């Protein structure tokens, strides 16, 4: 539903992608999130059972300690003075305290282990899911928001679990103990203590619901804040370039302020629990005194002031664990809100799926065929229509066309970043949808329009092309790409770190590195998408020969605006108005005097005048 709405909205995705992501499906309700959280927790049943046992032991020892102490004083100091016996009893007391420490410490350690491991696994699963999601997901999902879901939201689950677990167990235990003691003493006064419980329940449940809603709003806002920081930091150079620090600060301030308000609303709401429970305690006390007082007057034979005093004490004892548990219930509600946001990642649809029986080629030839392929990022807004092409093994195909014609899209389809709507794409005669995704993409080496590098050394980034390549192979690849020279000139050579936004290498040098990385990958099918646009033509002509060598025996696709780069291709594909309008070699196309020849002439027309001046 939510997805349809976005799909209806006209979106433009020529070089990029499709807007599915961001709109996470909403789980049916928070109960579903709770159930799924439970599945995660279930894995720790043995550890948690053990923890519960130790918690119970701890509680029992805690209850026993005052008795032993009282006994020691009464028996060995008060009734008869027996110091050695008293000391012996103190020894037992010491033992009890040590045992209590051990039990509590062990249960703490167990819970700490389980709760940390729990969120470790959740993060692990979340990351794995993020790797399976197709590119279209990232077109609209905010990076800062995803990070927030993977850290802050998961952390709320940790908080509720690590703080809540032992408190709930020991709270329950003392609740039961007090209840038994109370009812054993007097039933009607026990009911007087319990009289407020229905109100407490109604309050806790209704507050819980409000807390969850406010927690959701709060956590969503944290995600927005993260996104705002992330985007501003990434774009800060542009912001400074345009002297827009003030405006960007204002817009951050707005998000920040909204975050503050959402947080105040959430914390104020959840803070209502504690004072309210104290109030309920007072209310129950008043009932015990009122009712008890009347009963003492009406029926002094059964009800004594001593009994009422005992129940006044019980009313206090009874509400302490209730307060604790109610507070944990609050934390649980925020955890549910966090869990919902986390599971929305897990539930996001994987648009590109691995086939049921993935085909793994043993000796790929690299023949590529497009059969009547049509594609649109958004319905009714075709980007490519009825594209057919054939690239035999070892052949070089150049894709030419004006900006925004859909050249990059062809590459995106071949790589299966997006799935086509109609037609077929075949590699070695087999539909690419039948290939295992990893073997399909391993067959291809793409040099992307805007090279991306990870923070790490140049070596690490080159090795990304082929993990486990040897030193010589890496240097050889860098040499072929004409990158070796500038790398060697850097003080740390191949160990030079590439920083996230680093200025230490230029855009052109980045492209050279990207080419080297792909050379090292040694793919069967080579795709160069404007791979040399920022490289000067002299350097380009230097690496041209290397590229030729590289392309030998490989099926290659080249997208470039500089027509000199692609003149020698075996086949030129001219894309215009979403489809192939001309196809052939350079000579053929020039002879045809069509679109391509016009494009080519334009590129050099003014140079022609000057031609005579050289030579």
């Amino acid at each position, binding site marked *: 539903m939510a997805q349809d709405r976005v799909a209806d909205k006209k979106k433009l995705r020529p070089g990029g992608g499709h807007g599915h992501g961001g709109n996470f499906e909403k789980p049916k309700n928070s109960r579903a999130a709770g159930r799924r959280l439970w599945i995660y927790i279930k894995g720790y049943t043995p550890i948690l059972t053990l923890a519960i046992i130790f918690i119970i032991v701890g509680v029992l020892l805690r209850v026993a*300690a005052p008795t032993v102490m009282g006994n020691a004083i009464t028996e060995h100091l008060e009734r008869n003075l027996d*110091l050695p016996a008293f000391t012996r009893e103190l020894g037992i007391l010491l033992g009890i305290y040590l045992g209590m420490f051990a039990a509590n410490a062990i249960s703490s350690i167990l819970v700490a282990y389980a709760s940390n491991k729990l969120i470790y696994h959740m993060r692990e699963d979340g990351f794995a899911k993020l790797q399976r999601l197709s590119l279209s997901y*990232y077109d609209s999902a905010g990076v800062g928001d995803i990070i927030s879901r993977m850290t802050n939201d998961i952390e709320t689950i940790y908080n509720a679990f690590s703080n809540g677990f032992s408190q709930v167990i020991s709270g329950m235990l003392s609740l039961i103990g007090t209840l038994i003691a109370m009812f054993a003493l007097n039933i009607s006064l026990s009911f007087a203590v319990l009289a407020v419980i229905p109100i407490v329940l109604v309050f806790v449940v209704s507050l819980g619901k409000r807390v969850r809603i406010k927690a959701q709003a709060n956590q969503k806002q944290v995600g927005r804040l993260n996104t705002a920081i992330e985007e501003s930091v990434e774009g*800060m150079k542009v912001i400074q370039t345009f002297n827009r620090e003030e405006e960007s600060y204002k817009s951050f301030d707005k998000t920040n302020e909204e975050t503050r308000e959402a947080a105040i609303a959430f914390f104020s709401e959840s803070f209502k629990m504690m004072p309210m429970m104290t109030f309920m305690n007072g209310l129950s006390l008043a009932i015990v005194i009122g009712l008890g007082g009347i009963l003492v007057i009406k029926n002094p034979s059964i009800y004594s002031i001593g009994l009422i005093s005992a129940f006044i004490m019980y009313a206090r004892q009874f509400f302490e664990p209730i307060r604790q548990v109610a507070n944990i219930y609050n934390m649980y509600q925020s955890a549910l809100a966090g869990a919902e946001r986390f599971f929305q990642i897990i539930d996001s649809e994987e648009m590109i799926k691995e086939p049921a029986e993935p085909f793994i080629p043993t000796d790929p030839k690299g023949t590529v065929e497009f059969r009547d392929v049509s594609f649109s990022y958004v319905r009714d807004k075709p980007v490519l229509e009825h594209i057919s092409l054939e690239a035999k093994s070892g052949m070089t195909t150049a894709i030419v*066309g004006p*900006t925004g014609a859909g050249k990059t899209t062809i590459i995106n389809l071949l790589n299966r970043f997006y799935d086509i709507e109609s037609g077929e794409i075949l590699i070695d005669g087999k539909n690419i949808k039948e290939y295992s995704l990893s073997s399909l993409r391993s067959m291809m080496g793409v040099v992307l329009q805007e090279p991306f590098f990870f923070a790490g050394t140049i070596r690490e980034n080159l090795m*990304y092309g082929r993990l486990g390549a040897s030193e010589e192979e890496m240097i050889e690849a860098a040499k072929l790409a004409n990158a070796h020279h500038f790398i060697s000139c850097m003080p740390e050579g191949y160990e030079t770190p590439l920083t996230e936004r680093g200025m230490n290498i230029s855009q052109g040098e980045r492209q050279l590195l990207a080419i080297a990385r792909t050379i090292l990958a040694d793919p069967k099918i080579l795709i160069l998408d404007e791979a040399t646009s920022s490289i000067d033509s002299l350097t380009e002509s230097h690496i041209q020969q290397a590229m030729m060598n590289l392309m030998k025996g490989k099926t290659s696709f080249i997208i470039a605006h500089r027509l000199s780069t692609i003149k020698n291709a075996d086949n030129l594909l001219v894309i215009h108005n979403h489809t192939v309008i001309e196809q052939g070699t350079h000579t053929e196309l020039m002879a045809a005097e069509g679109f391509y020849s016009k494009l080519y002439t334009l590129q050099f027309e003014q140079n022609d005048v000057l031609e005579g001046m050289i030579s």
Partner: protein
Amino acid sequence: MNSFSSVFGFLKPYRGKMFGSFLLLIASSLMILLQPRITQWAIDFGIPSGNISHIIGYAFAIIISAILSLVVNYSSGVLLIQASQYMSYDLRNALFKRISTFSFKDFDKWRTGELIVRTNSDVNTVRMFIRMGFFMLIQSVLMLAGSLASMFMINTSMAWIMAIIMPSIVVLFFIIAKFIRPIFMKVRQALDQVNNTLQENLVGAKLVRAFSRQQEEQRKFESKNSDYYKISKKVSMLVGVMMPLLMMLGNLAVVVVLYSGGSQVADPTIQMSLGSLVAFSNYTMTAFFPLIMLGMILSFLAMAMASVKRINEILLTEPAIKDPENPLILDSLEGSIEFDHVSHRYGEGEPVLKDLTLSIDPGERLGIIGTTGSGKSSMVHLIPRFYDTASGTVKIDGHDVRDLSLDTLRGRITVALQDTQLFSGTLAYNIRFGNPDATDEQIRQAAQIACASEFIDELEDGYDHKIGERGQGLSGGQRQRLAIARAVLSDPDILILDDVTSALDTATESDIVSNLYKESRKRTTIIISQKINTIKRADRILILDQGEIVSTGTHAELLRSCKIYQDIFETQNPAAK
């Protein structure tokens, strides 16, 4: 402690709220103490009186005190919540503001994930301490002092034992806190790593898929995640054990009290009463309660201190480039640029510009071409002072750029950066980034100059079309045209295009250059490109090689005289061979 006070200075504007909250907290504690009193009166006087209305009166008194305590307690908490939230809001704003003043050089040092953790999660840790720990700290110290005083009133000799034990335990806490603070620091650093890895993986999603490296990425994340898990687990366990440990210390103290008290009771010369022994051991327990609390708070404090230190790393960064003391503010620039023996390098690296001297006239149209890494971008980055030169001066209208205000420099000079970063939002929003006051008509004109209108007009929602973060959903060429439109709209006196036409086809590129040159306004224009086609109409072309000017001249002159230029021309124009 000094660094600590700088962050806690952010609490200052809210000290009224804090103080109010504290007063209310005391009031609510008093009211809670009132309840047992009323209860006691009810038992001592109410019930024995046999008067039912009397008893009901007491019951109502309890209810009223409970309601009062509810209101007071809640208000106290809400005031504290507000104070802590307002403080963290101010802190985040201050961080953001500081980050905005980072120079490009400062920026290159930080990773996005780290900045996110500090602005969000670290601020949160400090806020949590303010909300949870601050009052408890005061409370526990007061309670501790109170119990000690009571103990001295009962038995001086035994109280002295406590007076020695307790402070030494507090000292122990500080030692422990000092010991765990680096561990908390490690936790935060490990979280940085998780965030960095995650952020990078998300931004580089396409590369990861293109190389089919999901498994490696998973492994990389696994290792960071497991580092974070291990160190967090360690801390959780430490803190988890600390509580029972402190409780045990308290209990041990009770045993010690009983043991020494027992012998005092038995000792006929002292004859300590049983009652005072019991009272004393009770006080020991009550004294240890705040001590335990103190221990927990100190560990919170250690956690907050680690975050404060990290926040300060940002707040105390003095930007490498900032306004001079008496900045020269100019409303407009003539547009002359002078490089006077300028050299530049990044960090300890090789010089990227070597003793460059050049003067550009107002209104001149300069083209720059040169090999990859020859210093083209570095050169133009010095003009609006994105970096400071290693030596030599850059002058604009005869003024050293270091004397001009940054507002003047960045406001009157616009560089369309090679890395065409766009923001999530509409296309209009992105173009308007160059000039927030621009009318729709001006936006349209700028888009036309940048040849962006042709693809925008094709969209159903035109200028209102929304794009994702980093301009996702646009092709490289479309992004470049938007970046040019944005730069044009800012209507600078000096316009610099740093190779932002690389992804455009020749026809579009020529059109843009013609449009720019056609504009009647006098403006110094510098265009960097790899393509001769883009720069050949410039008044003067500069050829850079390895940080030095090799040659200058018009297209025709260079074709005649400059070998490198001829070579470039030939590679781009095979027909000329």
